[in-house]
Protein backbone atom coordinates (compact mmCIF):
# COMPACT_ATOMS: atom_id res chain seq x y z
CA UNK A 1 0.00 0.00 0.00
CA UNK A 2 1.25 3.44 -0.87
CA UNK A 3 0.39 6.12 1.66
CA UNK A 4 2.74 8.72 0.23
CA UNK A 5 1.06 11.99 -0.60
CA UNK A 6 1.96 14.78 -2.96
CA UNK A 7 2.44 17.71 -0.58
CA UNK A 8 3.73 21.17 -1.57
CA UNK A 9 7.43 21.06 -0.73
CA UNK A 10 7.42 24.69 0.46
CA UNK A 11 4.91 23.88 3.19
CA UNK A 12 7.13 21.13 4.58
CA UNK A 13 10.15 23.43 4.46
CA UNK A 14 8.23 26.24 6.18
CA UNK A 15 7.31 23.78 8.95
CA UNK A 16 10.96 22.71 9.26
CA UNK A 17 12.13 26.33 9.41
CA UNK A 18 9.46 27.19 11.99
CA UNK A 19 10.48 24.26 14.20
CA UNK A 20 14.13 25.25 13.83
CA UNK A 21 13.41 28.86 14.82
CA UNK A 22 11.34 27.80 17.84
CA UNK A 23 14.20 25.55 18.95
CA UNK A 24 16.75 28.32 18.39
CA UNK A 25 14.68 30.73 20.49
CA UNK A 26 14.63 28.10 23.23
CA UNK A 27 18.42 27.69 23.13
CA UNK A 28 18.86 31.48 23.38
CA UNK A 29 16.29 32.07 26.13
CA UNK A 30 16.40 29.13 28.50
CA UNK A 31 18.79 28.95 31.45
CA UNK A 32 17.95 25.42 32.58
CA UNK A 33 20.40 23.15 30.79
CA UNK A 34 17.79 20.40 30.36
CA UNK A 35 15.58 22.73 28.34
CA UNK A 36 18.54 23.92 26.30
CA UNK A 37 19.24 20.30 25.35
CA UNK A 38 15.58 19.68 24.48
CA UNK A 39 15.61 22.76 22.24
CA UNK A 40 18.74 21.42 20.53
CA UNK A 41 16.89 18.15 19.89
CA UNK A 42 14.02 20.12 18.32
CA UNK A 43 16.48 21.93 16.03
CA UNK A 44 18.15 18.69 14.90
CA UNK A 45 14.77 17.13 14.28
CA UNK A 46 13.81 20.11 12.08
CA UNK A 47 16.99 19.58 10.04
CA UNK A 48 16.09 15.93 9.61
CA UNK A 49 12.61 16.91 8.43
CA UNK A 50 14.13 19.18 5.78
CA UNK A 51 16.40 16.34 4.58
CA UNK A 52 13.57 13.80 4.38
CA UNK A 53 11.36 16.32 2.53
CA UNK A 54 14.12 17.00 0.00
CA UNK A 55 14.62 13.25 -0.44
CA UNK A 56 10.90 12.81 -1.01
CA UNK A 57 10.93 15.52 -3.70
CA UNK A 58 13.12 13.40 -5.97
CA UNK A 59 11.97 10.03 -4.56
CA UNK A 60 15.56 9.18 -3.54
CA UNK A 61 16.78 7.41 -0.42
CA UNK A 62 19.58 9.93 0.28
CA UNK A 63 17.36 12.19 2.40
CA UNK A 64 16.47 9.34 4.72
CA UNK A 65 20.15 8.35 4.96
CA UNK A 66 21.10 11.87 6.01
CA UNK A 67 18.29 11.71 8.56
CA UNK A 68 19.82 8.53 9.98
CA UNK A 69 23.19 10.24 10.35
CA UNK A 70 21.50 13.16 12.13
CA UNK A 71 19.86 10.59 14.40
CA UNK A 72 23.25 9.02 15.24
CA UNK A 73 24.69 12.49 15.88
CA UNK A 74 21.76 13.39 18.15
CA UNK A 75 22.12 10.16 20.13
CA UNK A 76 25.87 10.72 20.62
CA UNK A 77 25.34 14.35 21.59
CA UNK A 78 22.62 13.50 24.12
CA UNK A 79 24.68 10.76 25.76
CA UNK A 80 27.66 13.06 26.37
CA UNK A 81 25.55 16.12 27.23
CA UNK A 82 23.52 14.27 29.85
CA UNK A 83 26.77 13.10 31.47
CA UNK A 84 27.83 16.74 31.62
CA UNK A 85 24.42 17.64 33.13
CA UNK A 86 25.00 15.10 35.90
CA UNK A 87 28.44 16.59 36.61
CA UNK A 88 26.99 20.13 36.56
CA UNK A 89 24.28 19.27 39.06
CA UNK A 90 26.80 17.49 41.30
CA UNK A 91 29.45 20.24 41.35
CA UNK A 92 27.26 23.35 41.38
CA UNK A 93 24.05 21.88 42.79
CA UNK A 94 22.15 23.72 40.07
CA UNK A 95 20.97 23.19 36.51
CA UNK A 96 21.61 26.82 35.59
CA UNK A 97 24.08 27.06 32.69
CA UNK A 98 25.31 30.38 34.15
CA UNK A 99 26.48 28.52 37.29
CA UNK A 100 29.46 27.13 35.36
CA UNK A 101 31.20 30.48 34.78
CA UNK A 102 34.41 29.85 36.72
CA UNK A 103 36.61 30.50 33.69
CA UNK A 104 35.71 34.16 33.31
CA UNK A 105 37.18 35.41 36.57
Amino acid at each position, binding site marked *: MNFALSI*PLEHVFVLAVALFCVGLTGVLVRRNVMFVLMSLEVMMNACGLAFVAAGARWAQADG*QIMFMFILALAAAEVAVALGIVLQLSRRFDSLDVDAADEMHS
Partner: protein
Amino acid sequence: MESLFYIAAVTALASTVLVVTGKNASHALIYLIVSLLSVAVIFFLLGAPFAAALEVVVYAGAIVVLFLFVVMMLNLGKGSVARESAWLRPSMWVLPSLLTVPLFLGLVYVLSGEPVQTGGVMVGPKAVGTQLFGPYLLAVELAGILLLAALVGAYHLGRRYLSERREEV
Protein backbone atom coordinates in the same frame (compact mmCIF):
# COMPACT_ATOMS: atom_id res chain seq x y z
CA MET B 1 -5.85 13.04 2.88
CA GLU B 2 -3.58 16.05 2.51
CA SER B 3 -5.28 17.70 5.48
CA LEU B 4 -3.57 15.00 7.56
CA PHE B 5 -0.24 16.70 6.86
CA TYR B 6 -1.53 20.07 8.04
CA ILE B 7 -3.04 18.57 11.21
CA ALA B 8 0.29 16.89 12.02
CA ALA B 9 2.18 20.11 11.23
CA VAL B 10 0.03 22.20 13.59
CA THR B 11 0.35 19.54 16.30
CA ALA B 12 4.14 19.45 15.90
CA LEU B 13 4.45 23.24 16.05
CA ALA B 14 2.12 23.65 19.05
CA SER B 15 3.77 20.90 21.09
CA THR B 16 7.23 22.25 20.23
CA VAL B 17 6.24 25.70 21.50
CA LEU B 18 5.03 24.02 24.69
CA VAL B 19 8.40 22.20 25.03
CA VAL B 20 10.37 25.43 24.75
CA THR B 21 8.12 27.48 27.05
CA GLY B 22 7.48 24.72 29.60
CA LYS B 23 8.43 24.98 33.27
CA ASN B 24 8.17 21.35 34.38
CA ALA B 25 10.91 19.25 32.73
CA SER B 26 9.00 15.96 32.66
CA HIS B 27 5.88 17.61 31.17
CA ALA B 28 8.07 19.25 28.54
CA LEU B 29 9.51 15.83 27.67
CA ILE B 30 6.01 14.42 27.13
CA TYR B 31 5.27 17.36 24.80
CA LEU B 32 8.54 16.59 23.02
CA ILE B 33 7.31 13.02 22.44
CA VAL B 34 4.07 14.42 20.94
CA SER B 35 6.11 16.68 18.67
CA LEU B 36 8.36 13.82 17.53
CA LEU B 37 5.38 11.54 16.85
CA SER B 38 3.73 14.22 14.70
CA VAL B 39 6.96 14.59 12.72
CA ALA B 40 6.97 10.79 12.33
CA VAL B 41 3.46 11.04 10.82
CA ILE B 42 4.77 13.67 8.39
CA PHE B 43 7.68 11.39 7.42
CA PHE B 44 5.20 8.60 6.73
CA LEU B 45 3.07 10.89 4.56
CA LEU B 46 6.17 12.05 2.67
CA GLY B 47 6.83 8.43 1.68
CA ALA B 48 9.64 7.67 4.13
CA PRO B 49 8.28 4.85 6.33
CA PHE B 50 11.75 3.78 7.52
CA ALA B 51 12.58 7.29 8.71
CA ALA B 52 9.20 7.42 10.47
CA ALA B 53 9.91 4.14 12.27
CA LEU B 54 13.36 5.37 13.31
CA GLU B 55 11.87 8.62 14.56
CA VAL B 56 9.52 6.68 16.84
CA VAL B 57 12.00 4.02 17.97
CA VAL B 58 15.20 6.02 18.35
CA TYR B 59 14.04 9.58 19.01
CA ALA B 60 10.84 9.13 20.99
CA GLY B 61 11.83 5.73 22.32
CA ALA B 62 15.50 6.01 23.24
CA ILE B 63 16.64 9.64 23.35
CA VAL B 64 13.63 11.04 25.22
CA VAL B 65 13.72 8.11 27.66
CA LEU B 66 17.39 8.94 28.31
CA PHE B 67 16.30 12.49 29.13
CA LEU B 68 13.59 11.13 31.40
CA PHE B 69 16.10 8.93 33.28
CA VAL B 70 18.29 11.95 33.96
CA VAL B 71 15.32 14.08 35.07
CA MET B 72 14.41 11.36 37.56
CA MET B 73 18.02 10.90 38.67
CA LEU B 74 18.36 14.62 39.39
CA ASN B 75 15.24 14.34 41.55
CA LEU B 76 13.85 17.77 40.68
CA GLY B 77 11.47 18.64 43.48
CA LYS B 78 8.54 20.96 43.73
CA GLY B 79 10.86 23.97 43.97
CA SER B 80 12.08 23.46 40.41
CA VAL B 81 8.91 24.85 38.78
CA ALA B 82 9.06 27.98 40.95
CA ARG B 83 12.77 28.38 40.14
CA GLU B 84 12.00 28.07 36.43
CA SER B 85 9.38 30.81 36.75
CA ALA B 86 11.94 33.06 38.42
CA TRP B 87 14.51 32.36 35.68
CA LEU B 88 12.06 32.80 32.85
CA ARG B 89 10.81 36.38 32.96
CA PRO B 90 8.57 37.34 29.99
CA SER B 91 10.92 40.18 29.02
CA MET B 92 13.65 37.63 28.30
CA TRP B 93 11.76 36.39 25.25
CA VAL B 94 11.89 39.74 23.44
CA LEU B 95 15.48 39.97 22.19
CA PRO B 96 15.92 36.32 21.06
CA SER B 97 12.55 36.52 19.27
CA LEU B 98 13.68 39.70 17.52
CA LEU B 99 16.66 37.69 16.28
CA THR B 100 14.84 34.54 15.19
CA VAL B 101 11.69 36.05 13.63
CA PRO B 102 13.69 37.84 10.89
CA LEU B 103 15.58 34.58 10.32
CA PHE B 104 12.26 32.77 9.90
CA LEU B 105 10.85 35.43 7.56
CA GLY B 106 14.04 35.51 5.52
CA LEU B 107 14.07 31.73 5.08
CA VAL B 108 10.37 31.72 4.15
CA TYR B 109 11.10 34.43 1.55
CA VAL B 110 13.96 32.38 0.13
CA LEU B 111 11.75 29.27 -0.05
CA SER B 112 8.85 31.04 -1.79
CA GLY B 113 9.91 30.23 -5.34
CA GLU B 114 8.02 28.19 -7.89
CA PRO B 115 5.65 25.74 -6.21
CA VAL B 116 6.99 22.20 -6.20
CA GLN B 117 5.21 19.06 -5.08
CA THR B 118 6.83 16.11 -3.33
CA GLY B 119 6.99 12.95 -5.37
CA GLY B 120 4.27 10.97 -3.63
CA VAL B 121 6.38 7.83 -4.10
CA MET B 122 7.25 5.59 -1.18
CA VAL B 123 10.99 4.94 -0.71
CA GLY B 124 11.06 1.77 1.34
CA PRO B 125 13.65 0.35 3.74
CA LYS B 126 15.21 -1.81 1.03
CA ALA B 127 16.18 1.19 -1.10
CA VAL B 128 17.54 2.96 1.97
CA GLY B 129 19.57 -0.09 3.01
CA THR B 130 21.16 -0.68 -0.39
CA GLN B 131 22.20 2.98 -0.57
CA LEU B 132 23.40 3.00 3.04
CA PHE B 133 25.71 0.02 2.67
CA GLY B 134 26.75 0.95 -0.87
CA PRO B 135 27.92 4.51 -1.55
CA TYR B 136 27.53 5.65 2.07
CA LEU B 137 29.50 2.82 3.70
CA LEU B 138 32.37 5.07 4.81
CA ALA B 139 29.92 7.47 6.49
CA VAL B 140 28.33 4.53 8.32
CA GLU B 141 31.75 3.53 9.66
CA LEU B 142 32.40 7.11 10.76
CA ALA B 143 29.02 7.24 12.52
CA GLY B 144 29.96 4.02 14.31
CA ILE B 145 33.24 5.58 15.49
CA LEU B 146 31.33 8.68 16.63
CA LEU B 147 28.92 6.53 18.66
CA LEU B 148 31.84 4.61 20.19
CA ALA B 149 33.50 7.86 21.22
CA ALA B 150 30.22 9.10 22.71
CA LEU B 151 29.86 5.81 24.62
CA VAL B 152 33.34 6.15 26.11
CA GLY B 153 32.74 9.82 26.95
CA ALA B 154 29.36 9.20 28.55
CA TYR B 155 30.76 6.30 30.59
CA HIS B 156 33.67 8.43 31.79
CA LEU B 157 31.45 11.37 32.75
CA GLY B 158 28.78 9.26 34.41
CA ARG B 159 31.02 6.82 36.25
CA ARG B 160 32.57 9.42 38.54
CA TYR B 161 29.10 10.68 39.41
CA LEU B 162 27.95 7.21 40.36
CA SER B 163 31.06 6.17 42.33
CA GLU B 164 31.02 9.34 44.46
CA ARG B 165 27.34 8.87 45.08
CA ARG B 166 28.06 5.41 46.40
CA GLU B 167 30.68 6.69 48.84
CA GLU B 168 28.17 9.16 50.27
CA VAL B 169 25.77 6.33 51.03
